Every structure is written in C-alpha cells, then in structure tokens.
C-alpha cells in the first residue's frame, strides 16, 4: 500500500497527518518524506538516521581533444544547458535535465559522463517506522529526480506513507505517481478550499482514489464541506482547531504524544483508506 499525502499548499498539516498515522499503525510502516525542499517529518518522528546516500545526476562534460564544434549537442538540448561556440562548448549543469541527448548525439564521443549532486537521502528508524527522506542541495532547482530516488525505496510489502511537497506541479506529481491513494489535507478557509480544488484536479488527472482530512476544523467557514459533498469526495477525518495541538506542533511533538486517544482515530483513518483502495481493486 502506497499512500501519498498532498495538500495543494504547505502549512495545512500534511506532515502532521502523515507522522501521526505512521506511528499509530501497528504494522510495519515506511515513511518517505518527499518534501525534499523542506523535509520536516524527521523533526516529529525523531528517527535515528543510520544511512546517508548522496544522489547524483548526469551532466555532460566535453572532451576538447575530441570536439569538432559541430554544434549537434547544443541543438538537441531543449534546456539551453549546452551551447557550442566557435572554439568552446559551454555547459550549464544547473539547467541540465540529464536526458543524455548530448551524449547520444555527439558523433565524436566527445561528450562524457559527469555529475552534479542533487541532494542526499537519509534512512533510519523511529520505533516501528522505517524512515526515509531526501534533502535537496541548496541552490539545486530540480527536485523531481531526487523525489524519484526517494521513491525507489518504497517497499510494496509494507504500508508506505509519502509526504508530498506543496503545490500541484512537477514535484507533487513525482510524489503522487504510482500511489494507491492520495490523501489531501486542507483547512476550512477560502485559501484552503482554493488550494484543495487544485490538488483534487491534479489527483484526478493521475486517476487515483482520494480522500480528505480537514485540519483546524471549526476555525473557518463551511466552504470545504460543501465542495466535498458536491464532488463526492469522502471526508475521512476532522482534526479540530486546538491550541494544545498547535503548541505541541511548535515543540516538534505529534498529536498522539499529547493526546494518545487520537491513535485510534489515525488507525481508523488508515482503515478507511484501505477500505477504499480494496473496493477500487475489486471493480
């Protein structure tokens, strides 16, 4: 089972829902924090990291003893990452998407394999939760390849909870792809609704079942509820606006740390998801 938690926008409590659900389950769980720009789940799970891996990606390097300045590499590159001058070839590694087109196309085999660092992946443990996250290198613009590298560590035999980055563009799609279920977290405000609608559109484009957790319930209006009813989207859990929860969060504590009775609710949340995914599988 692979559940990706997304939210259209950050700050809605996506990580809160993910970590609380992970620790509440009594089965083997993997938590994969794919919010590689700002990974935060480790602050709550307090995982002990025991493995670090640097993730690199291909970038071209030109061997000038072979290059004839024919220009073919610059022509194929769609990202302006390689430019051929009269007697020099410029490369811009930060723009490179690692498609290897320049490498394939060069008739002189002058383009060679080099690499740039995308970031690191750290893996560790917090109780029964196997924890994995990626951290994007500062100044690195492209997060999807690092997200894909984190997702290579999904273990299909277990429950995998993926914390997605905010937004609805390529990084979120990278985190959502291949999941069995998309869990969207929102707030009962006009901003929350606006962002939720975008997230729902993204999930629907990828054709996977989805459900919603309403966070900070009671602290806004009823726009989100009417939208969910209209769109036939299940509201799976409501977490009330509670200063106790906000303060616990500020200290890096989880809801179940200060209110252990919530374990039951997060387990219930998982069971509902499992129910929906299984029904989906039947049809």
């Amino acid at each position, binding site marked *: 089972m692979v559940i990706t938690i997304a939210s259209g926008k*950050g700050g809605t409590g996506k990580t809160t829902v993910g970590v609380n659900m992970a620790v509440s389950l009594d089965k083997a769980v993997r938590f994969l924090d794919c919010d590689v*720009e700002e990974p935060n789940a480790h*602050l709550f799970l307090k995982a002990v990291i025991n493995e670090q891996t640097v993730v690199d990606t291909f970038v071209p390097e030109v061997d000038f003893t072979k290059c004839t300045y024919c220009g073919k590499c610059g022509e194929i590159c769609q990202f302006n990452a390689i430019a051929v001058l009269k007697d020099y070839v410029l490369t811009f590694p930060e723009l490179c998407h690692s*498609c290897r087109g320049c490498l394939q196309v060069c008739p002189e085999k002058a383009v060679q394999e080099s690499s740039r660092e995308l970031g690191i992946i750290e893996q560790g443990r917090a109780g029964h939760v196997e924890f994995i996250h990626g951290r*994007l290198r*500062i100044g690195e613009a492209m997060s999807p390849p690092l997200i894909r590298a984190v997702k290579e560590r999904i273990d299909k035999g277990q429950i995998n909870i993926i914390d997605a980055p*905010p937004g609805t563009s390529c990084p979120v799609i990278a985190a959502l792809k291949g999941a069995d279920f998309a869990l969207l977290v929102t707030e009962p405000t006009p901003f929350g609704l606006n962002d939720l609608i975008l997230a729902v559109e993204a999930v629907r484009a990828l054709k996977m079942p989805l459900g919603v957790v309403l966070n900070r319930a009671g602290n806004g209006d009823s726009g989100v509820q009417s939208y969910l009813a209209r769109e036939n989207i299940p509201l799976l859990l409501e977490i009330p606006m509670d200063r106790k929860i906000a303060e616990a969060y*500020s200290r*890096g504590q989880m809801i179940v740390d200060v209110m252990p009775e919530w374990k039951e609710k997060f387990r219930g949340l998982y069971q509902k998801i499992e129910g929906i995914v299984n029904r989906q599988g039947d049809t």
Partner: protein
Amino acid sequence: MKELTVISGKGGTGKTSLVAAFAGLAENKVMVDGDVDAADLHLILKPEIKTHQEFKGGRKAVINPVLCTACGQCIELCQFKAISRDYVIDEFSCEGCGVCVHFCPVEAIEFPENICGEWFVSETRFGPFVHAKLGIAEENSGKLITMIRRQAEKLAEERNLGLILIDGPPGIGCPVIAATTGASAVLVVTEPTVSGVHDLERVGDLVRHFKIPAMVCINKFDINLDVADRIEKYCVQEGFELVGKIPYDPIFTEAMIAEKTIIEYSPNGLSEMVRGMWGRIINRMKTI
C-alpha cells in the same frame, strides 16, 4: 525600481495575508502572485482581469501510432521512463527533452509546443496586479514566475511605479529561485515552530547562496516564545533584520473569510503592528 519578494520556507505561515496587507499599504507598486502553483492572493485582491495570455513552456513528445514500427529505440533512450511498452508517452513523465524525437528512425514522434498555463494583467483596488495559473501537473513554474516578474517590471516602468511586491512560492527549489534571484530583498515570514526554524534555516542558506538581503517576520510569535527567541538569535547571527513580531490572532482567518486585508477588516490593533512593520521594510528597502 525595487523588488521585494515575500517567501516563507513553507506555506501556511500567513505570508499571503501579510502580502495582501502590504498591498493596501504600499504606494506606487505592482503586485505579483509568484506562487503560480497555488495562487491565493487573488482571493483577497479580487482582480479585474484586463489582459489574459497563454503561457507556452517547452514541448511534449507524442508518438503517432500509424508511423511507429515498435523498434524500441525511444523506450531505450528515454531517461524518464515516460514511454510504455505499447508506445504511448505518459505526458506526466515526459520532460520534453526531445531525445526520442531526434532518434526515432521513422520520424514517428511529434513534438508540439506545450501550453502549460496562463497569465493575467489585472487591476485591483490597490493597483495593477500580475498573476498566473499554471496548468495542473505542469512543470515550468519557474519559467512562468520569471515571465510574470518581467511583465511586472515592464508595467512598473511604463507607469513609473517604484516597487514590485511579490508573493513568493514556498520551498527552496526552482520556483523560489525564480522568484528571488535578482530581487532587491526578500522578507521571510516564519513561525516559531520546530519545523518553522528548520525551514527558515534552509531559506537562510538559500538567500546567502544567492546573496539577497533578507528581512524576517515572525508570525504567531506567541505560540512558542522559546522558539521565537531562537529565531531572533538566528536572525542576529545571520544579519537578517527582524522587522516584525505578530501575535497569533484568529482575526487573520476572519479577514480572509471576509475576503479583505487585515487593514481593511480591522484597522486598529494588529493592523498597527503590520503598518509599523511595513514602515521598517520600506526604510530598509531604501538603503538597498
């Protein structure tokens, strides 16, 4: 012309509510919603759209099944695993590198331009506003942000406006880099939470990396005074000017629900603080 980008490490820190308030306080400016991925500022600014244009960014490959001989070249060459065994390209995986297009021996792959969003120039009760909507699941948010920033600069020049106020995207990746590089300064809105500090430090590394002067505002500072203190110390240590500390107040949410800026919704109390902060920001911007 000065450009201020408001960023936040993570969403939900109240950044957009503050930008909306600044929009009501600043004079002679163009506003930009740089969070093209999940734009919210329009909910408060209620723009009247004047012009509307498509945004084309990159291309996407499409296999023509009539011409395809199923030779397997493209599957082998695609680094993004975007081509299925039955030779259909998954548009969500295709990065538009064109390698398959180039190497297809029978030229069965087309490479049309991809319309990945739209952008608008609008009028609002606070002045001109440039904003955009990225298509669902589209990439190129960085390019779109860069584009609307250029439009805002053009507009500012035409109308002789001295300030561009940008509501920035979250994170530290491509969209944030696009929204902040070349800006005169950034204002980082943060919260006194363990993850807020963590995000602030990552953003701090980013602005240092790109050498952009940074100011910091702690929103909801009274949720955790210890952490708020840590943030203050961090700011001193990094040379980031702390321009404001705003207490937690549900009035921000109320104003948002009323689709008003906090200054319009409740001109006293909290609004005074926001005004004071804006004054400090403007003073600092003058020195940059």
